[in-house]
């Protein structure tokens, strides 16, 4: 343990995804109080106001695929600062819905251009234009990738979303320094 208290430094990250995995995490309800006794939540879109990913994180759940420059930067950063990275949910594990635009990677200027045109020009009711705000709107990557194609991942927890029970079953062993066996219908499910 790298932190002075014996609590684990725990983080959750939200990349390109619908936040459904985080909602499922919140469905753990009263168990979250139990969790809070074992961990310090040092970074999370649902349980912390910290804006910068901190150093010396023990466990980080990463929801979402890597779809834009911010996602990529954060993924690289959290990997350097985290001991155990969990690919959390189907978007992180497979790319899932956010990666569907990769189907158009070979046509019409690539998937990036295609999805922007579709979203901001073709489907616009009024004022069709591409968003342009350098430094504010992050650039889309040409190809959306699952997390493990960008950084090494230590544990995979697929599901869309993974149920609260499975999230708990995966996290609980981590609290006592053990690695959960991600096997069988109880622990593995896509979709």
């Amino acid at each position, binding site marked *: 343990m790298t932190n002075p208290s014996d609590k684990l430094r725990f983080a959750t990250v939200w990349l390109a995804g619908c936040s459904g995995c985080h909602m499922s995490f919140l469905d753990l309800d009263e168990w979250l109080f139990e969790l809070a006794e074992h961990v310090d939540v040092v970074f999370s879109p649902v349980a912390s106001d910290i804006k910068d990913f901190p150093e010396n994180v023990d466990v980080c759940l990463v929801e979402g695929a890597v779809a834009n420059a911010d996602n990529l930067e954060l993924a690289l950063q959290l990997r350097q600062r985290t001991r155990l990275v969990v690919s959390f949910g189907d978007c992180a*594990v497979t790319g899932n*819905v956010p*990666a569907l635009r990769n*189907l158009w990677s070979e046509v019409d200027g690539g998937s990036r251009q295609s999805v922007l045109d579709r979203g901001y020009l073709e489907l616009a009711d009024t004022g069709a234009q591409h968003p342009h705000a350098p430094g504010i709107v992050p650039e889309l990557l040409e190809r959306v990738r*699952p997390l493990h194609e960008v950084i090494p991942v230590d544990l995979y927890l697929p599901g869309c979303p993974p149920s609260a029970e499975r999230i708990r079953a995966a996290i609980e062993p981590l609290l006592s320094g053990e690695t959960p066996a*991600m096997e069988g219908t109880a622990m*593995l499910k896509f*979709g």
Partner: protein
Amino acid sequence: MSVHTLTVDGVEVAVPDGASLLDAVRAAGAELPTLCHLDGLTPVGACRLCLVELEGSGKLQPACATAAGEGMAVLTQTPQLREWRRMAVELFFAEGNHVCAFCVANGNCELQDVAVTVGMDHSRFPYQYPNRRVDASHPQFAIDHHRCILCTRCVRVCDEIEGAHVWDVANRGAECSIIAGLDQPWGEVAACTSCGKCVDVCPTGAIFRKDDTTAEKEAHRERPQLLRAARDQHQWQNQ
């Protein structure tokens, strides 16, 4: 009828002449993952999930398409076989677009199940994201090629059981696809009797009823076997 005695993972079994290694494995109470195989259809040995090792020779044979022989010693669960099965499933996931979250077959999909069976928690091979077709030209059914794993069950059931041969495989290699007629919209192919057997046997959500939405597909994968037993052995369900 003569009988062959063999062992499956050390368990001795006796099966009738003509039985496959898959029959022998099941007789021994073991299970093997399968995708292309379906009882009642001619085996093709294409998905490679039911590969077993013949002790001694070290040779791998598809259990579904190999006849059980006297004295064989079959291994079904060596670490090597398990690893290769997992890789095969990863290859299936990576070559198509299998998005369980909004698939009509979510919860009733053999590919989804087999991923769990072989312990695939992610694919180590990059997804290919092929841009394939969806054909909903048939009044009752549709085929979404993104979800097709080329098991050819639809081709076989339509040819062997229904006798219509609407489906076949076109092209080759990674370009292979299931086609109706001369690669026409399904709804325009006169040979189709709309019997729905292809829907019943499809292991994934590739062929489905248009009425069904996410996670609503019901498959009836036992039907070819029932039909074949009825035809070949005159075993009817009302007897």
